[in-house]
């Protein structure tokens, strides 16, 4: 299934372009295609050049890469990741701290990126779902999620995985009940909870992280 994966990696905001994907299948009239993505965020953040009243500069390290942004002070870390850095792996489920879909690790701790202004992250190290794996392999938690089928639609999944990585690091969850309690900030409406538990237990048991 590498092809499906490749196809979508192309369309996802890093690397190459939407055009390749869209031209795979010709549509009547063709030529319907979204423009190539801007990957170099240090050039221009979309929209921010226009009438932003209160711009803020912020430098943060996102998945190991230093990013300097000038953003509207209102931009949350979540929207900075999704809309400015075009890293949509981190999801927006509620925008109010009520679902956990936006969970990322800031300086190693799991937090809700929807309730953090990007401007508050000056000097912080942010790890998102896109930055968990090193190289081509999957992070052990990601691999365990695949193995245990710990998702369905996949929308809560990046948040669940980042949260699970944070949970293991925190080291407060020993029993199933404790894992469940401390993962309760991540809602999965598809209901993959049992499989998420299995995945976390496996990673925790073999001390993979």
């Amino acid at each position, binding site marked *: 299934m590498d092809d499906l994966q490749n196809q979508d990696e192309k369309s996802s905001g890093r690397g190459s372009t939407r055009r390749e994907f869209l031209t795979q299948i010709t549509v009547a009239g063709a030529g319907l295609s979204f423009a190539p993505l801007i990957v170099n965020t240090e050039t221009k953040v979309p929209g921010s050049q226009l009438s932003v*009243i*209160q711009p*803020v500069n912020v430098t943060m390290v996102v998945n190991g890469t230093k990013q300097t942004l000038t953003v*509207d*002070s*209102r931009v*949350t870390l979540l929207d900075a990741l999704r809309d400015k850095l075009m890293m949509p792996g981190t999801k927006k489920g509620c*925008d*109010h*701290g009520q679902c*956990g879909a936006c*969970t990322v690790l800031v300086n190693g*701790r*799991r*937090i*809700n990126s*929807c*309730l*953090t*202004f990007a*401007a*508050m992250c*000056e000097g912080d190290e942010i790890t998102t779902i896109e930055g968990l794996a090193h190289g081509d392999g999957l992070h052990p938690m990601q691999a365990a999620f695949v193995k245990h089928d710990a998702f369905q639609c996949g929308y809560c999944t990046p948040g669940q995985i980042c*949260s699970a990585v*944070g*949970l293991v690091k*925190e080291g*407060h969850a020993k029993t199933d009940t404790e894992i*469940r*309690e*401390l*993962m*309760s*900030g*991540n*809602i999965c409406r598809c209901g993959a909870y049992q499989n998420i538990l299995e995945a976390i237990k496996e990673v925790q048991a073999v001390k993979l992280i």
Partner: protein
Amino acid sequence: MEPFKFIRAQDNNNAIAAAAVADAKFIAGGTNIIDLMKLNIEKPHQVVDINALKLDKIETLSNGTIRIGALVKNSDLAYHPNISKNYPVLSEALLSGASAQLRNMASVGGNLLQRTRCPYFYDTSYPCNKREPGSGCSAINGYNRNNAVLGTSDKCIATHPSDMCVAMAALGAIIHVQGAKGMRSIPFADFHLLPGKTPSIETTLKHGELITAVDIPVMSFAVKSHYLKVRDRASYEFALASAAVVLDVQGGRIQHARVALGGVGTKPWRSTVAEKVLTGALNNEQTYRTAAEAALSAAKPYTHNAFKIELAKRTLVRALTTVGGMS
């Protein structure tokens, strides 16, 4: 959200100076204020980020008092060995609140000032005296299942949502603040205000004052304490009713008692009447039930929340039983 100027404060004075302007607000964890700003409920035009301030320590003073910096994260406080061992009520209250992520963000200072979750307060298309003084209260005759039964007024019946505050009320914490005119300390019981006629004024903190620390005074018997929270789902929800209980039982008799309730009051609800019933009484069901009756005796039900009165009583009885046992 309205545009605002974002200022990174470097020290206390700096922060206080920046927050002096009329519509300025501090931001710590951001978990409450950003939530409310997104909904146009809070509309600061200057936001002062205080996270660089050196207020993130938990220290034990020479007299045994635990001093908690205002920026200490809820999770760090909950898992601090001194707290989890000697003040389990506080640790449990913190861990029953919100989610692991939010506790990693939420600060002690911000938690003290978190605002109600009354659904009408959260929806600017409804009148709400707390949000817009004089506009009316949509909850009193509206959907009020989660509203308060204690300390309500004809202007507002909003529940104070914090769990941490309930434990701190029981422990008799002291809040230290610093303002342009210097420092002052506020006993916990004097910090939060009843809604009365001015539900928009929620605490005795003055505009621009910075909370620097919270002290937990020595209370050796707090080793035996407990926080019990009852809700519709098992986690990640505010309380329907909760109880913070500290009991010192010796030889079948209660020597000291501290009781506070959550989820039912318009402020963190320390119940001195219940404490009075308990102090000196035998540690049995009869005592606990009498204390619970006393604690809720002034309760006033509204259309959808009458159940909270009985639920709060039972929650308190259970918490007392858990801590004090039965002789």
